[in-house]
């Protein structure tokens, strides 16, 4: 099947195209140099064309997402759309059903989304949901930061065993990368406690968060995994946490990347750039984080932008979620997983007139606007922690228009003036910056820039066409038009197939699931498995034979190969 997109104003940062009228040729799901005269033609008519959106951090599937749904029937009853001949019903706003998840991302022109956390023991559930999310390509990052084998091998300083465990854990969970959440804290939450910084020792395991992060970064590079370590810092969500964030980012200097990408991705910075000592003197420290990023080459981040209104916070950071539940006096979901990690789910309402929330709203934007290189700050809302992903167009409009920001600021708590820098920031991002933060940058951070996030020959034919003409619009003034265009793609093309036309779903093919098959020397696996077998014999509540995710749960796999390479440690 061939398709030709003509007359598009193309933004393709990887290939240096910034709004030029460029034709895009598609054959058999891939972008090619040219197609035959038989190709069907879409005349973009000068409208904005970008690679399909790529989201490197979103909570779209698995145990905690479903806990959110079960806890929140009041959320499910919003966003309802009845079934049609093509689509199943849509439900929910912060915790949509699997169908709305795929349809809404596609309607925004997104074609690839990564679930940001799964425990190995519950990975089968993640994949059951991923299998039901239509259209988009997806994958899931696997939690390693509080796993008993991780801590044992870190304590033993045995990087070969740790690498073998990570490789095996990725296979067991059909995972795409290494997620670390509040390292060590997940284990301590097993007894209702937590670590308070990088150098606390985890009782019984005799390791520190610092050891865990550095060791996992080392083995991540030893294995040459496509993505880097993906870190949710210790102390997240507490006033003053920016210090821990900076100290954690510093650790990245100890390891050299095995690939053209960062060695550490520090996620959802809205929750990690907090100054002050309590909620009373709470302030933004996004400028300090941006300053670090501007002077460092091996760390990337994402915004985790706060969206006013309803959110559902969900994270493997169990103690953070208990603290949140105590603040809201509301519902609390907790889901500790034996030998692996914790998790929590707490509904949240971000009201404009609350000082803390006004400041948090500013943090994400400040970070994106004060960091010079858009490849270092991806656009996310940490769905649905900062707010639901359907608000990405709102974030785009805020980044592109100071006027819109100033209009918003007028509706917020006055603290936004005193305790953030946002009112004085005039920078406005352009379509190229946005294409980086939502496409090329996310694909690069994930290590998928060969086939995702760009429109050069060989890339997956994942394309979005938006109903605005970049040369005829001033986003600074016409921000409402920008938001509306990004909310509802004129076309979304997924793997060469038109899936959205004029904002409506017209086809629902199944996307693929990306996972990483990393090889290590057999003898390393054999030694590592001796420990693992003991863990199952004595501590796990299921048998090893029933642990690993079977092929039946990944029916459209895209396996990325990786494996042990030598790593330079400075």
């Amino acid at each position: 099947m061939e398709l030709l997109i003509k007359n598009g104003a193309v933004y393709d940062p990887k290939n240096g195209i910034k709004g030029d009228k460029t034709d895009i040729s598609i054959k058999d799901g891939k972008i090619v140099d040219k197609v035959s005269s038989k190709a069907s033609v879409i005349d973009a008519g000068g409208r904005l064309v970008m690679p399909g959106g790529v989201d490197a951090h979103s909570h779209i599937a698995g145990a905690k997402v479903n806990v959110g749904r079960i806890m929140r029937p009041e959320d499910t009853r919003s966003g309802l759309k009845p079934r049609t001949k093509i689509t199943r019903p849509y439900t929910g706003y912060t915790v949509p059903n699997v169908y709305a998840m795929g349809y809404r991302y596609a309607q925004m022109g997104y074609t690839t989304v990564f679930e940001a956390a799964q425990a190995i023991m519950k990975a089968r559930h993640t994949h059951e949901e991923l299998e039901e999310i239509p259209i988009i390509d997806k994958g899931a990052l696997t939690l390693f930061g509080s796993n008993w084998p991780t801590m044992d091998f870190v304590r033993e300083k045995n990087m070969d065993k740790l690498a073998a465990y990570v490789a095996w854990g990725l296979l067991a969970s059909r995972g795409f990368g290494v997620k670390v959440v509040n390292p060590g804290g997940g284990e301590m939450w097993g007894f209702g406690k937590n670590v308070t910084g990088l150098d606390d020792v985890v009782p019984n395991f005799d390791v520190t968060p610092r050891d865990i992060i550095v060791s996992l970064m080392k083995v991540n590079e030893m294995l040459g995994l496509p993505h880097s370590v993906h870190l949710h810092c210790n102390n997240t969500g507490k006033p003053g946490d920016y210090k821990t964030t900076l100290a954690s980012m510093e650790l990245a200097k100890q390891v050299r990347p095995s690939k053209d990408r960062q060695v550490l991705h520090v996620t959802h910075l809205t929750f990690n750039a907090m100054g002050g000592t309590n909620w009373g003197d709470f302030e933004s420290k996004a400028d300090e984080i941006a300053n670090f990023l501007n002077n460092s080459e091996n760390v990337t981040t994402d915004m985790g932008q706060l969206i006013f209104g309803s959110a559902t916070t969900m994270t493997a950071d169990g103690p953070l979620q208990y603290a949140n539940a105590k603040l809201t006096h509301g519902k609390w979901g907790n889901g500790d997983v034996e030998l692996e990690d914790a998790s929590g789910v707490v509904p949240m309402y971000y009201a404009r007139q609350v000082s803390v929330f006004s400041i948090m709203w500013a943090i994400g934007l400040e970070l994106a606007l004060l960091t010079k290189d858009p490849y270092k700050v991806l656009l996310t809302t940490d769905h649905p922690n900062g707010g639901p992903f359907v608000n990405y167009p709102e974030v785009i409009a805020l980044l592109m228009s100071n006027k819109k920001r100033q209009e918003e600021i007028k509706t917020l708590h006055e603290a936004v003036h005193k305790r953030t820098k946002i009112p004085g920031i005039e920078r406005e991002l352009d379509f190229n910056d946005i294409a980086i933060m939502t496409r090329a940058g996310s694909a690069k951070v994930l290590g998928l820039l060969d086939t995702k996030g760009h429109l050069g020959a060989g890339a997956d034919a994942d394309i979005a066409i938006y109903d605005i003409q970049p040369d005829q619009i001033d986003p600074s003034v016409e921000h409402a038009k920008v938001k509306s265009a990004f909310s509802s793609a004129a076309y979304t093309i997924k793997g060469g197939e038109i899936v959205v036309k004029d904002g409506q779903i017209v086809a629902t093919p199944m996307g693929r699931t990306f996972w990483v098959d990393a090889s290590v020397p057999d003898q390393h696996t054999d030694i590592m498995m001796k420990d693992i077998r003991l863990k199952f014999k004595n501590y796990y509540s299921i048998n090893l034979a029933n642990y690993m995710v079977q092929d039946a749960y990944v029916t459209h796999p895209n396996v990325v190969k990786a494996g042990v390479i030598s790593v330079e440690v400075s």
Partner: protein
Amino acid sequence: MQTVTLKPKKEIKISVEAENISPDKFAGKTEKDIQSIEIWMGNRRTTIGELFSVKVEGSAPAADTKLVLEGDFSRVKRIGEGMSGGLMIIKGNVDMHVGAKMSGGKITVTGNADSWAGREMKGGELIIEGNAGYYLGAGYRGETCGMRGGKIMVMGNALDFVGEHMCGGEILVKGNAGILPGLSNNGGKIVIEGNTSRPGSEMAKGTIIVNGTVDEMMPVFKLEGTEAVEGVAYRKYTGDVIISGKGVLYVK
């Protein structure tokens, strides 16, 4: 003034979902207009005209529109949902969710109303001359607020969970109420003339007055002594102490 009279054409067994029966939807419309308004019976889309005879006198905006419902509406749900003004008289029994989310106007049910009458009500008046079912003036599953404003009066009895998650407004039950009235109450006022049991659990704010007998008291209230309310002496309790609640419970 506009008056619209509806009568079922035949016995209704499968539940009808009739949020479209309300002064807001009928105001200024002719018989033909109203007959063609969509309504659901089970999984079938049908019209008001298919199920009910419609008589219209006059034409007026919602606030001056009166609906008279005659016959058996005991399998017709969600009548007057979201109603903002006007009058509605249901002569007989009515099914669940009558007056849910209403914000203005007045509904009178001369018979019994099934569960969730006045669910998430914001304003207006709902009078049930017979009995009410469960969850009178309560919320929807998972919501933190049920009734926020307006007034509900039940001449007969109400079943369990009266005013659950109530955040404002007033409920008066002339008869008895089932267990756990005012549960997780966060405002508003509930008066029960008859008997009830376990009132005010997890109450954060609001007032509950029980003039009959409290069968079982929740062990979460602090007795503050006696106090007169409009000349009547009550034992006054505050609580729920577990959540440092500022709710007030008066028991005669």
